[in-house]
């Protein structure tokens, strides 16, 4: 398995369509005029410097925060214009991996993964148990069913969080800084896992990250947020951007500040 060399292009069919999105905290506008499309099967990277609003954009994409202006369409359905039932249906298509796993600390790994299944499916408890074990072994945690989150390492927590995010077979997976706090090898393994899962299941993946290695290894589409002009300044395949972007800030970001001759 060599994830770093796999380059996959999306099938071209748009899944998430962001139109004229403006994000703000009260009267403070964080980003405006965001327009981009995420296609089915994409591994889409949201990149930008610290504090530019990457995680806030992710919160908008998963329906945790309401846009100040603009629309976010999922297969043509606007989340915030839809009724509560429709929103619930959309939410069930999302799987989210939070920065440090966000596992519920009072439950075992198996109970964590079983929660969404118990809530949203009519499977019997034996079926759920089997499914949970399979999901955990899919992320390499077979045999850890009865462990509590406090008993496992940070990398394993992220994997368990991923198993929970995938519990309902979502067709949209969101990752907030998947490699933060992991050693390079664990980070690479997680990247490989993301590619494998996206390829095998055909899942669309949206990743917030500023780890260059990850960006080039897994991303085939991206958006670059620039806090100075409060909007996106580039979008497209990050490898392509590195070669062709006319924007010195994008090049500087993608080369750790070494690509542009300044000063």
């Amino acid at each position, binding site marked *: 398995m060599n994830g770093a060399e796999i380059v996959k292009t999306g099938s071209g069919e748009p899944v998430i369509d962001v139109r004229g999105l403006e994000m703000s905290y009260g009267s403070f506008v964080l980003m405006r005029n965001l327009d981009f499309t995420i296609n089915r099967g994409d591994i889409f990277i949201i990149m930008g410097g610290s504090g530019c609003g990457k995680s806030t954009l992710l919160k908008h994409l998963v329906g945790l925060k309401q846009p100040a202006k603009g629309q976010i369409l999922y297969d043509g359905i606007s989340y915030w214009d839809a009724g509560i039932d429709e929103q619930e249906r959309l939410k069930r298509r999302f799987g989210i991996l939070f920065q440090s796993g966000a596992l519920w*600390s*009072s439950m075992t790994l198996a109970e964590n993964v079983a929660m969404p299944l118990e809530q949203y*499916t009519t*499977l019997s408890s034996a*079926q759920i148990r*089997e*499914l949970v074990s*399979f*999901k955990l*072994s*899919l*992320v*390499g*945690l*077979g*045999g*850890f069913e009865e*462990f509590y989150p*406090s*008993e*496992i*390492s940070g990398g*394993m927590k992220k*994997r368990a969080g991923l198993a929970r995010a995938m519990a309902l*077979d979502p067709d949209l997976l969101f990752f907030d800084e998947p490699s933060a706090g992991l050693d390079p090898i664990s980070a690479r393994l997680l990247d490989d*896992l993301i590619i*494998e*899962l996206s*390829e*095998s*299941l*055909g899942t669309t993946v949206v990743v917030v990250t500023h780890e260059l290695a990850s960006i080039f290894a897994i991303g085939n589409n991206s958006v670059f947020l620039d806090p100075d002009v409060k909007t996106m300044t580039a979008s497209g395949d990050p490898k392509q951007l590195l070669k062709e972007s006319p924007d010195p800030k994008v090049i500087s970001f993608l080369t750790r500040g070494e690509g542009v001759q300044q000063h």
Partner: protein
Amino acid sequence: MTSELAISRNADGSLLLALAGDWKLTNRLPSPDSILAELASGQAVQRLAFDTAALAGWDSGLLVFLARVIDACGQVGVTVDRDGLPPGICKLLQLASPENQRSGVTRGEKNPSFLERVADAALDQVKGFKEVLAFIGEVTLAFMKMLRGKGDFRRLDLIVTIQETGAQALPIVCLISLLVGMILAFVAAIQLKMFGAQIYVADVVGIGMVRVMGAVMTGVIMSGRTGAAFAAQLGTMQVNEEIDALETLGFSPVEFLVLPRMLALTLMMPLLCVYSDLMGVFGGMIVGVGILDLGFMEYVHETTAALSLTHFAVGLFHSFVFGILVAIAGCLRGIQCERSASAVGYAATSAVVTSIVCIVVATAIITLSCQVLGI
């Protein structure tokens, strides 16, 4: 569309599973039991192959099904030919295979014996007691150092804590004391009214509030309000490694964090107690004048006659002791906090329990001592 499973046996002893239709969790999926029965039937099976030409869609349901079949084949030594499966499924099954699982995390023995648990609990108690003594010792040393003018904390911290534990606690102390004063008056009135002696309600409320209840109520409020806050603040600092940062820079956490909190609470508690006394007496007066038809001046006169400075001194002494107890309990639990979010909650709870128990025990000791000494 439903999911279908057909099992056929070839002449060469291989089993062919033909999967067709939509293999999704939302459908009723066929059970793998028929295949397991076939494998165990005694007729030798060498190989298991798949035909997925008619497979329309799949999700985790199919994966779980296949994982179980492949696992069963492994147990009876049947070779599984995965060529007939879609590549995505092969990859996922590979990811979930036993050789791809993490290892290396072990936990302590799961079920220690009864004796072991009893011994552990006893040793924990001893250890906890030692920790309390060590902490009190450290606080005392830090206090002595401060008296010599070498206290190592920021004056601003002290002032902010004084404001938080003093002025900002006034509304709740006011409400609770007023109500407790009224309750005392009602309870006393039930008996005293039978003898036509309602006027002595003023004595009961006055002495009760000023001598004990004002101090105890303030202590309980402050343990819930401030003791828990201290534990949560210091616990969060422990989780964020802020306390380690202080220590590496040569600051003593006890001097820097515990001392200002203890000073603030020990100074503010008697003041709050006086305020609480006043509010309690006022509450009693509302009941006395409003419901028991006592005169306003009559009530004031009876209260002043009943109270003496000794009662005040005893009440203030109580609150001074409670201030120290609540601050020490809160800070101790905060400093002892482990490094997880749930530990902070536990520290806060434990601080409240510890300080309320200490308050009640201290009240009993002081009351008994006063009785013996005739104060």
